[in-house]
């Protein structure tokens, strides 16, 4: 036993898979400890806030400031308000009036503004330009000119009589230390469509999904093992009956069965564990078949005959002479069952047939929400990409562990 474990952990494939799996598991276990609270609590009002650190503007105003004079601060400020669309339309105007713009890089704000300021004249109206377009250019130009001009913002607050009273002036050279601002929130993966912290949701979803996988895997492996052992060892009529039922379940695609059962249960009754149970109850067939065939090859071995001759009971023979010989295989089947149960849950939830959405997040539900709110169309990658990544990592690590185990237990597969 000890020796086998050592061998297993010397298999590089198993080790890599194990490390990845443990890392994912630790995220699910440790993150809620550092960031407690309900993962489904809405913290933001808007949808899909991008990842990053958010500083309270209200608190920043009152925070003690330091003055920095940075050479490129103005240029950066200009560059950040000048959108790509504005830049393209500026170049369009310049070409329309015949200015040579070859070699101009529109991302180079300084060069663009220089050539624009030298050439723009609102009285010139290029041919074919509508009045509306002309006006938009005028307002764009005004915006550009005013940016450079104002150096100070004045913050006002109404006093008791309703008169506006100046609170403070903010110079363009004022900076606050993020550490001094009272309210700062870091969202490594932004927020989702309901304004919820995606990372917090993800950590909770990994836990739930792994639990679903574990419960479904246990159920499927247990049913498969018991039926396989009985039908394989006892044989005869029992074997025929078990194989008949197994074949029926094998022929009906289990995913269709899952959809139908989950639909008939109804949204309100589908908790995470109910879904796990349903997945477990529909995915035992392959375990049964393969355990049965292994047992059939084992039951005529001499050590089983010897055990029979020693007068051992059927239960004892199955438990001591058959089960240990297929234990490694069952462990591997169990790992694959976990992996496929997690994937099944994700598929079901994506179709809207997963666990109910009000209790706990699961990996599939997160993808379902991202899809419903068109995160993939709006480029909100943080709402779905980490989820896909985690599903892929879990599945990959479990399969890698399975391959590693396979190599340890079947030495012919070693390369």
């Amino acid at each position, binding site marked *: 036993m000890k020796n086998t474990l050592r061998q297993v952990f010397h298999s590089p494939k198993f080790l890599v898979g194990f490390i990845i799996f443990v890392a994912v598991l630790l995220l699910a276990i440790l993150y809620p400890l550092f960031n407690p609270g309900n993962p489904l609590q809405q913290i933001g009002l808007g949808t899909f806030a991008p990842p990053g650190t958010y500083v309270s503007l209200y608190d920043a105003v009152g925070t003690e400031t330091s003055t920095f004079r940075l050479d490129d601060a103005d240029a950066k400020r200009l560059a950040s308000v000048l959108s790509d669309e504005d830049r393209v339309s500026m170049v369009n105007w310049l070409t329309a009036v015949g200015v040579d713009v070859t070699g101009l890089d529109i991302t180079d704000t300084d060069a663009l503004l220089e050539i624009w300021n030298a050439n723009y004249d609102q009285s010139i109206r290029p041919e074919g330009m509508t009045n509306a377009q002309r006006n938009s250019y005028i307002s764009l130009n005004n915006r550009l000119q005013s940016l450079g001009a104002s150096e100070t913002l004045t913050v006002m607050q109404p006093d008791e009589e309703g008169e506006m009273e100046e609170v403070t002036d903010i110079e363009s050279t004022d900076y606050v230390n993020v550490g001094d601002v009272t309210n700062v929130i870091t969202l490594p993966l932004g927020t989702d469509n309901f304004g919820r912290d995606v990372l917090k949701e993800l950590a909770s979803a990994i836990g739930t999904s792994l639990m679903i996988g574990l419960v479904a895997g246990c159920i499927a492996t247990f049913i498969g093992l018991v039926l396989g052992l009985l039908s394989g060892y006892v044989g005869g009529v029992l074997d025929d009956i078990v194989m008949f039922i197994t074949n029926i379940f094998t022929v009906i695609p289990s995913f269709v069965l899952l959809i139908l059962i989950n639909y008939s249960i109804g949204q309100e009754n589908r908790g995470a564990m109910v879904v796990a149970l349903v997945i477990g109850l529909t995915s035992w067939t392959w375990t049964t078949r393969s355990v049965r065939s292994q047992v059939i090859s084992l039951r005529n071995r*001499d*050590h089983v*005959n*010897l055990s*029979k*001759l*020693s*007068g051992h009971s059927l239960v004892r023979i199955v438990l001591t002479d058959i089960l240990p010989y297929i234990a490694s295989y069952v462990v591997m089947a169990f790992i694959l069952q976990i992996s496929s149960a997690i994937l099944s849950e994700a598929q079901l939830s994506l179709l809207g047939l997963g666990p109910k959405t009000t209790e706990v997040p699961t990996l599939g539900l997160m993808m379902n929400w991202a899809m419903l709110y068109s995160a993939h169309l709006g480029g909100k990658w943080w709402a779905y990409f980490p989820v896909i990544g985690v599903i892929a990592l879990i599945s990959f690590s479990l399969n890698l562990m399975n391959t590693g185990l396979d190599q340890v237990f079947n030495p012919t597969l070693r390369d």
Partner: protein
Amino acid sequence: MKNDPTTTVNMSDHRIDVKSRPLCLSGKGVTKYFGFGKKITKAVDHVDFEFHEGELVSIVGESGSGKTTPSKMLLGLISVTDGDIYFQGQKRDISTRRKKREYWHGIQAIFQDPFSSFNTFNRIDTVLLDCINMRGGKHLSKEKKFEMMTEACSFVNLKFAELTNKYPFELSGGQMQRLMIARIFLLKPKILLADEPTSMIDACSRATILDMLLQLRNETGMTIIFITHDIGLAYHISDSIYIMEHGKFVESGSADEVILHPKAAYTRRLISDVPKIHEAWDLTTV
């Protein structure tokens, strides 16, 4: 000694006259078919046999002649298609688990491959303890059980004290087969069915094991049914021999009768196939 053609050895030194002894195991029209319809395989086809108490009887046949099937039928591991088997004068009844267990008190086996005969997850003392428990020694004290196991192991030249915490796969093939005999020593069945017990081990260990089997027979008076493909070996150790071809006994009788005056062509062929060191070996008949 066997390789010296100038000395003739009386092979029947240890032979016993069995005809006067009572029957231990016999069969009438015993048949085993596998499959049905056109694919039917007649593994054992209406064979009769009579094994006497204390007899060492060999069933000889080449590979595929159906030697293992009758052994499994005799052990009650597979069902009999047709015919009756009589155990100690009475018709054998193994219809229930309890009756089977009782029957297995009377008949035990040694299998061909020692490496697959033991459960690799059980320690050696577990194997031997099972035997003591089966003989009704469950209530015995720990010391008494240890003593019995030590005695059984010393009978087969194994040191039990060194083996207690070992697993069967840590032993050599010959040691494992000796452990198997130690098991039989503890169980003391009426009949021992040895299914090619020496075919997987080297000649030196083979002699030891055969010697132990003969000694066991002489001490306990058990019937030994020895299944082998080696007709020379069978001649040296058996009291009587059954020759099996395609699921039928083509010839049977005392060892001297069958080997020295063979009647069936198949027997003559089997005898001619035995390699002889001091003669040219005619491979055309093989």
